[in-house]
């Protein structure tokens, strides 16, 4: 973690009403996660306790405090995807990558996360890799995507 970089993000949002939310996005977009070592710095500038910052970050599924793989695969587990057998597909992806949800592959290429609806319900089952959504995902498509993103 670079303190100067964190401070640059803080300076951008410290006077924004409700600025903690966009600030945390800004840090995560930059670092890939929110380093816990940044909490004291944020705490000073935003006039919040470290406990409040921890409480904020841990409340939201989107925010992470650990480094992730190069690519994040999110598998939609919500009802529409379940109706199209995502329970089977998620098992296939887990086996293929050799990891469970919230884990990272040994080569640090992929992290796997569950997500509850990508709004792509007309073409279930759906997964998202980084910022791209893929619909009507089959096992073959998973194989192809993992190859492409590796």
């Amino acid at each position, binding site marked *: 973690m670079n303190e100067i970089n964190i401070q640059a993000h803080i300076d951008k949002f410290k006077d924004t009403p409700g600025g903690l939310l966009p600030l945390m996005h800004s840090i995560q977009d930059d670092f890939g996660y929110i380093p816990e070592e940044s909490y004291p710095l944020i705490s000073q500038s935003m006039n919040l306790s470290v406990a409040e910052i921890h409480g904020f970050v841990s409340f939201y599924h989107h925010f992470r405090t650990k480094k992730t793989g190069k690519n994040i695969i999110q598998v939609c587990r919500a009802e529409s995807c379940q109706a199209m057998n995502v329970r089977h597909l998620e098992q296939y992806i887990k086996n293929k990558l050799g990891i469970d949800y919230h884990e990272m592959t040994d080569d640090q290429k992929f992290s796997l996360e569950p997500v*509850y*609806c990508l709004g792509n319900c007309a073409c279930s089952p759906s997964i998202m890799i980084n910022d791209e959504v893929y619909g009507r995902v089959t096992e073959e498509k998973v194989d192809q995507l993992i190859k492409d993103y590796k």
Partner: protein
Amino acid sequence: MAVKIFVPIDSTSLSLGADDVADLIAATAKKRNIDITIIRNGSRGMFWLEPLVEVETDDGRLAYGPIEINDVDSLFDCEFYLGGQHAKYLGQTEELAWLKKQERLTFARTGITDPLSIGDYIAHDGFNGLLKSLKMTNQQIVDEVKESGLRGRGGAAFPTGIKWQTVLDVDSDQKYIVCNADEGDSGTYSDRMAMENDPFMLIEGMVIAGLAVNADHGYIYLRSEYPHALVTLNKAIKIAEENNYLGKNILNSGKNFTLEVRRAAGAYICGEETSLLESLEGKRGLVRYKPPLPAIKGLFGKPTVVNNVISLATIPIIMSKGAKYYADFGVGRSKGTLPIQLAGNLKNTGLIEKAFGITLRELLYDFGGGSASGKKIKAVQVGGPLGAFIAEEHFDIELDYEAYSKLNAVVGHGGIVAFDETVNMAEMARYSFEFCAIESCGKCTPCRIGSTRGMEVIDKITANDEQAKNVQLLENLCDTMVNGSLCAMGGMTPFPVMSALKYFPKDFGVDTNASDT
């Protein structure tokens, strides 16, 4: 003159490879020396046909779909750019039965226009509602919305005009318009479509809301799972500012309204309005006690209109065509149209905007074409993860707020998820509790603890462990959650659970002859 070719940019179209198709069409045209212009339009919402490629001809727009990259060469071989015949030729887009049977008001432009062309927007009735509103008093605007009968399309169905009246009537130096774009319900995507495919409509609706209640700043609280909508909205806001439809002294009226998008962070509960406000304030999204209502004490303690995307996006057409025009659609107290979204196990999925009063059977079979798997449709969840499962015996009930309420079901945000006969409804009921446990904000006990206890009780029922006693316990638990939870998360999770048990007891291993459930 260059032929206009349309390839949608909606994120579901993109999820099926629309970008690759558009790129390949452009490259092939260049190679073959054919003069075309590719327009990235919104999607018409016929997702089983996506990517849907359209060509503008003297006979109107002609459709081809679903187009994969392997189809592109053959499309050129048969001169699709002149309207040539092809195995995937569908005919004139406007004449397709799926579209012809709809009443598209809010989604009138969707799929036709380029989402970021303000010229397209204006050419298709855009900003007429705003122009009219600028000549009206606050009260006249609020009255128009009241008369339209518009009710909150996020799911709670509270009359929009009454909410606006409350905010208008409070005296305050600062008021806000907040758009709830945290569309987390599975099976719903109409908010996403509105934002990606017709973003100026939402902007116009929010400006009118600001004029109505004297608010000069708005927030769009957008879920983080919608990265494409984020980009589109930010671009649209910039274009609207450059053209003076947003910002200071809008169209020289002396009125100001600024707008910004705030990215949410993956908490389903933040779709609940008070939790959303906490999140916007930079806090954990804990649900607030009501009263005070957000209309009186909302964002940063100021009077705030919190409306769903579709509610706000429907304001422009109401103001442009008049309250009566809108209210003439629908049945009883469910006035106007509802954007219905077909999802899950159906052959034809997509967006259907219809006046209230259509039945589930018409939606599932006439529009949906039955299940995708070809198996019998066993259950349908209407209105998202907190909506009841509907069994076939109720497929003929008209879709309106009051009729569904009688069934202990909800229309909600209009999401319809179909399951075929392979679904195990005890697993779905367990999942409802699991989802509630994952997404509960934790403030009230029935929701925080009840959701986990609910999973355990269902496990006991399906394992036939003191079954009758545990069914009774489940009913008591659900009753506590319905009546004791602070918000709809804990208060409505029992709807899918109890409907699953009531209509599909066999899936729980419950013998209906032995128990009165």
